């Protein structure tokens, strides 16, 4: 928790008004949303509970709309508590890997608006990252990359997104983190009671599923036996929007996990994000 005061300071110093990781999924990919010249700031707390230990990590995401279809994101860690040897995973598909600074370019290359409140769109994500720790999961990490694609639909009643990507890193002193391949599917629904008009609060609920397949880390020509594996997580999340503020929370549980070697199972991951668009 040593960086918690910094996180509190950052969120407190925000101007009085901020979008939650796009349209709101806590763990899955979604299409970018910023207007040309618009900024957003997301502060996220994520809890990872496992068989062996619990941990909390805090991340900040700054977004800027270069154009209405091109968005620049910068995500960086604010601190962590608990287990210091965290597994390498993405802190939500939009937020980047833990303990890294990640800069991403999001390009919405397809967009149609067939009706009032309705949009179909697709986007590509390209990110580069640098570890802020000497080692991630006990492995010296080189410069990382993230490449992802997502397509989706948004309306005043329902939402869905399907996406997938790969996060990898360059070799450093003969060691290399295993690639993480991930895919997400999100379905969202706005209950009738929350379909009141702007500026009244706007709430929506999601069911998210996230599949992660991590390769083993490599040290020299050897693969680390206690690394890599597959996980499929499913869980609900909720997004509340009021004016320029957004708050979202979600929990995802592994419905299946097959981890290599002697790695502790994950019990759940939970995430809370506070967003402001300005």
């Amino acid at each position: 928790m040593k960086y918690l005061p910094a996180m509190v300071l950052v969120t407190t110093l925000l101007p009085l008004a901020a979008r939650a990781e796009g349209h709101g999924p806590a763990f899955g990919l979604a299409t970018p949303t910023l207007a040309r010249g618009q900024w957003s700031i997301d502060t996220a707390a994520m809890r990872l509970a496992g068989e062996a230990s619990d941990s909390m990590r805090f991340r900040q995401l700054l977004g800027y709309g270069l154009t209405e279809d091109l968005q620049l994101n910068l995500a960086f860690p604010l601190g962590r508590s608990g287990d210091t040897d965290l597994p390498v995973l993405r802190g939500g598909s939009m937020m980047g890997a833990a303990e890294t600074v990640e800069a991403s370019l999001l390009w919405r290359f397809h967009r149609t608006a067939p009706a009032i409140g309705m949009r179909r769109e697709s986007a590509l994500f390209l990110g580069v990252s640098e570890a802020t720790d000497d080692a991630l999961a006990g492995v010296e990490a080189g410069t990382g990359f993230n490449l992802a694609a997502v397509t989706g639909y948004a309306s005043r009643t329902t939402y869905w997104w399907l996406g997938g990507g790969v996060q990898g890193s360059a070799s450093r002193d003969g060691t290399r983190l295993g690639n993480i391949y991930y895919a997400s599917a999100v379905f969202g629904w706005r209950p009738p009671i929350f379909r009141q008009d702007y500026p009244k609060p706007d709430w929506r609920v999601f069911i998210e599923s996230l599949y992660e397949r991590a390769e083993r880390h490599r040290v020299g020509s050897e693969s680390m036996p206690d690394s890599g594996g597959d996980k499929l997580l499913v869980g609900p999340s909720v997004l509340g929007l009021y004016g320029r503020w957004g708050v979202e929370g979600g929990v995802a549980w592994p419905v299946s996990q097959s981890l290599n070697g002697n790695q502790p199972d994950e019990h759940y991951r939970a995430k809370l994000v506070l967003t402001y668009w300005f």
Partner: protein
Amino acid sequence: MMHVIRSIPVALAVGTAIAASAWAGGLQELDQTIFGMDCAPCAAGVEQSLRKLPGVRSVRVSLNEGKAVVALSPGSRTTIGQIREVIRHNGFTPREARAVLVGRVVQEGDRWLIDTGSQRFVLEGDSSAMRDRPLADATSLEMSLTVRVPEKLRTPPAVQLSADPAGR
């Protein structure tokens, strides 16, 4: 085209004559339909961006109706194109609109136009509801006209007279 020419003088009666001393031409109000806007921050972004345009008095954004209603000060030089550009920059699609234009009606060849001071619009269409009302000399008056604005404005921009009385 003859249909248009015949109908314009009659349809001008729909508008409201304004005392010359009080007249300040321009776009007075735009009721702009927007496609693709689905969330509260989307609406907040559109609202804030539109408020930054010069001469904007008020902005009301409705997610459920998919529209932004922009009211402008008399004499504002802000154009329909500028308002639509702001909406596009927010990532949404402006479609048809209804506008209240204040300007001087002029005849140019076989066309009738309204000159708002900053822009000229070709007047098209008819107003069947007012077909039998006489109009002595519309060209000497400054009018407030309610018009329908198509999704795409050609050059010169053409608008269609609405049957709704100006000022409603």
